[in-house]
């Protein structure tokens, strides 16, 4: 695995995608949410699932980004939070065996529960894309702020092995006396990314359009139950506190990609009549663009919120 300069090595193990609302807002303030996919192979089982813990930025980082954006200050005033040292974790595996079978997409949610005396208490949860709570890191990663003043005594205990990095396998840029990684560069990138999602027009306009269509799709159908529409969508699979027996899965599942149709945003959906479908290609595209604008405007007028069952979470960028 290649270690990318300026980034924590663990980020090379996964790909990350945001789970924010189309306008970048946080459905549940205080939580950071990010989609995680393993770069190599398919994850399954508890051992693999556990590896997802801690693979995203500390909650204190995300909090700092949100606060910075909330104050609308220039990027030059963005302050990197103090680095942290992991002290411990209490991990519980909260789903039956079959929920850990396939983990091509997982939702990592984390939040900063509290911070006291230089110690930060985080909570992390890992959800499958079928809506199973796979791992709960309750007591969570207990971190101490690695601030020079308050952390000196603790740091002394932690120092001895820092020099023992295996330099034979490392890029010399990382083989300095400190095994720690400066996160300033990715931190700025994180802020920029978050900022990008805050604008309604995300960096990829075509995708944004697709998202709005998706919102409309949800809204139209939500009365008849989201389960049937979402397929592998993590919002919904089981009802609130619904009892599941054995390996029983969500009801009314539909095949993967049949529900979301994200890659066919211009395509008329099943049951949706398009009276101009016989027009020439140019006119058709124009018509579709017009329809798309209309649905976007409609979604905006109505608040463009995706309905969720249970709490939603927020915005890692």
């Amino acid at each position, binding site marked *: 695995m290649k*270690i990318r300069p300026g980034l924590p*090595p*663990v980020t*090379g*193990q996964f790909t990350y995608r*945001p*789970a*924010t609302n*189309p306008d970048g807002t946080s459905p549940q303030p205080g939580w950071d*949410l990010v989609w995680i996919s393993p770069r190599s192979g398919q994850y399954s089982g*508890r*051992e693999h699932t*556990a*590896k*997802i*813990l801690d*693979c995203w930025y500390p909650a204190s980082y995300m909090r700092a980004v949100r606060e910075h954006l909330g104050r609308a200050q220039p990027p030059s005033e963005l302050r990197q939070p103090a*680095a942290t*040292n*992991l002290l*411990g*974790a*209490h*991990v*519980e595996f909260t789903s*039956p065996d079959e929920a850990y079978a396939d983990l091509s*997409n997982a939702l990592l949610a984390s939040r900063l529960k509290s911070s006291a005396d230089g110690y930060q208490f985080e909570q992390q949860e890992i959800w499958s*894309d079928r*809506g199973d709570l796979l791992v709960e*890191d309750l*007591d969570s990663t207990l971190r101490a702020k690695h601030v020079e003043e308050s952390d000196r005594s603790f740091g002394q*205990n932690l120092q001895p*092995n*820092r020099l*023992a990095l295996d330099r034979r*396998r490392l890029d010399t840029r990382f083989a300095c006396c400190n*095994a*720690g*990684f400066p996160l300033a560069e990715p931190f700025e990138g994180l802020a920029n990314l978050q900022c990008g*999602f805050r604008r309604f027009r995300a960096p990829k306009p075509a*995708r944004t359009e*697709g*998202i709005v269509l*998706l919102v409309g799709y949800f809204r139209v159908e939500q009365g008849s139950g989201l389960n049937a529409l*979402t397929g*592998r969508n993590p*919002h*919904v699979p089981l*009802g609130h*506190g*619904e*009892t*599941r027996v*054995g390996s029983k899965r969500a009801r009314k599942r539909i095949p993967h990609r049949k529900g*979301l149709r*994200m890659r066919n945003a211009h395509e008329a959906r099943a049951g949706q009549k398009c009276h101009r479908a016989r027009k020439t290609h140019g006119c058709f595209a124009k018509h579709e663009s017009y329809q798309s604008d209309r649905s976007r405007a409609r979604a905006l007028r109505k608040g463009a919120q*995706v309905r969720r*069952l*249970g709490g*939603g979470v927020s915005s890692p960028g």
Partner: protein
Amino acid sequence: MTDAHAKQTSGALLAGRLNFGWWASNGPTAGYLVSLVLESVGRLPGLDSVTPRSVDLRIVRLAAADDFDVTAAFAETAGGVATVMVTLAQREPFATASVQLGRRLAEESIAPSHRLGGFPPEAHGR
């Protein structure tokens, strides 16, 4: 397969080299260490087929991307639940963990009372 390039030695459940690819800021992630703990416990006789239910991990000092081993300090089974305490060391301990494992006791499961929702992974593209 293990990311730690592990091997089993006579005294240790697991031995190998910590993979620097699992470093966060200045040490291995909790998830990586927990996965090593689970792999180690799975090598204990009779526990390979028992499901881990919880892991309590405590870091003693910063680990290095260097050789390590995992040893079991205590293992006890009572009431169908096994409790194992392990130590991860690089010459001296850098972390300890206790693991509880147990077989399935009932068929019924109850989904969590709260539910997280995020925009689908396909929504923002790659």
